[in-house]
């Protein structure tokens, strides 16, 4: 027998909303702008998501991203906790929709601040966006190399990637975010997400097969 969690539509209660939001939906202001959850949803106590509901289901994703970017448990835990505190304060500005890219954006920003302070793993190359779409970006994936790739070898290859490349691998391959969601989290255009993902995959494969990439190697 399954557990029943029965929802009763709660009516008759109202939730005070910030003035700015009320202003937005004054009569005559046909406010169903893109990406904004309409007032009917936001004011319904039944469907208005709480901070916990919006962010806690994504705690594993948040930690995974932080752990890959900062590369140790202690820093990752601190960063995620800091990010959740910030998110809580900023929750008033959350416009509804998917909480995952929203919380991951904050986690990423905190991690980058940590990296910047310690000068670790930050982008070490100016990324050439003109490369996007060139055939080189779509270097052939070597089925045998990937099939035989050992886990340690893959992790080593990941560790050699600068943050801007390892994060797209984590967000896409491990967390399953779409290009659009990654673009939101990393605050770059979708085209840049595609070229970074292509380059990251290419670098990882080069790391596995020992073939040199066109770029100079990136040390830690």
């Amino acid at each position, binding site marked *: 027998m399954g557990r029943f969690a029965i929802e009763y539509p709660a009516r008759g209660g*109202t939730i005070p909303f910030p003035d700015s939001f009320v202003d937005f939906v004054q009569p005559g202001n046909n406010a169903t702008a893109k990406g904004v959850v309409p007032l009917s949803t936001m004011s319904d106590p039944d469907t208005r998501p709480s901070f916990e509901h919006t962010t806690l*289901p994504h705690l594993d994703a948040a930690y995974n991203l932080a752990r890959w970017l900062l590369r140790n448990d202690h820093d990752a835990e601190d960063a995620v906790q800091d990010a959740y505190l910030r998110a809580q304060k900023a929750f008033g500005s959350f416009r509804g929709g998917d909480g995952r890219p929203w919380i991951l954006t904050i986690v990423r920003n905190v991690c980058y601040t940590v990296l910047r302070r310690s000068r670790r793993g930050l982008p070490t190359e100016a990324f050439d966006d003109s490369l996007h779409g060139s055939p080189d970006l779509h270097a052939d994936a070597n089925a045998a190399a990937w099939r035989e790739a050992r886990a340690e070898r893959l992790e080593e290859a990941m560790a050699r990637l600068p943050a801007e490349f390892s994060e797209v691998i984590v967000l*896409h391959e491990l967390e399953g975010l779409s290009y659009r969601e990654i673009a939101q989290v990393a605050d770059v255009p979708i085209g840049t997400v595609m070229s970074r993902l292509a380059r990251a995959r290419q670098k990882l494969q080069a790391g596995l097969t020992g073939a040199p990439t066109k770029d100079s190697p990136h040390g830690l």
Partner: protein
Amino acid sequence: MDCNETRRLLDADLDGELDLVTHLELEQHTRSCAACQALVEGARERAIALRERLPRHGAPAALRARILRSLPKERPAAPVAWPAWRVAGLAACVAFALVGAYNWGGERALSQGLYSEAVAEHVRSLQAGHLTDVLSTDQHTVKPWFAGKIDFAPPVVDLAAQGFPLVGGRLDYIGGKPAAALVFHRGHHAVNLFVWRSGDTPLERRTVEEFGYRAEAWSGSGLNYMAVSEIPLADLQQFTAAYRERTR
């Protein structure tokens, strides 16, 4: 489509980012081109290796506990909403108990059966690789596809902007009645939304969790709705809220 274009697009295809028409063109080309087929195979192996051999670090329990402790104890909505909830909840509990006592094994068992059935259909659709009969991210393709197959028009909307892109539709049966199954994606997960005529058994709005799957049901305009997925409950509720909002 030629080899150059295939080569340029195959990553985006495996990443699930191509539209249906381009996806089919690419598939047609790779079927007849061994060189491109090998590239697709390589990209597929790469995705598998990364997904399965790189560790996904889960949040330590202590971190989760610390974050939970840092949350404010009092919910802002609670003081206003509580009395209404209490009264409605208590009244509904009593009513539910009475109905249950009066008609044990009746309606409740019926809808419980429907949930289990919907979850089973959801699981089957994933296992059999038979998620969709019509594969399209375009609501204007999916909606007419159902015409002539079922005697009602399920509201079809794409919720890509809300994080749940429409991927297609399928014909299914729930409770012995023909149902439209609309398929949405959430990352690597699928959400099946079953829609069928309510007749004289409209579903109460209700959320059920069973064996790691979650279902939310509701009813409106003569149709029953049941959304089923393995995604977190909060995500599923986001989905149903977005769908109801867009189809009002």
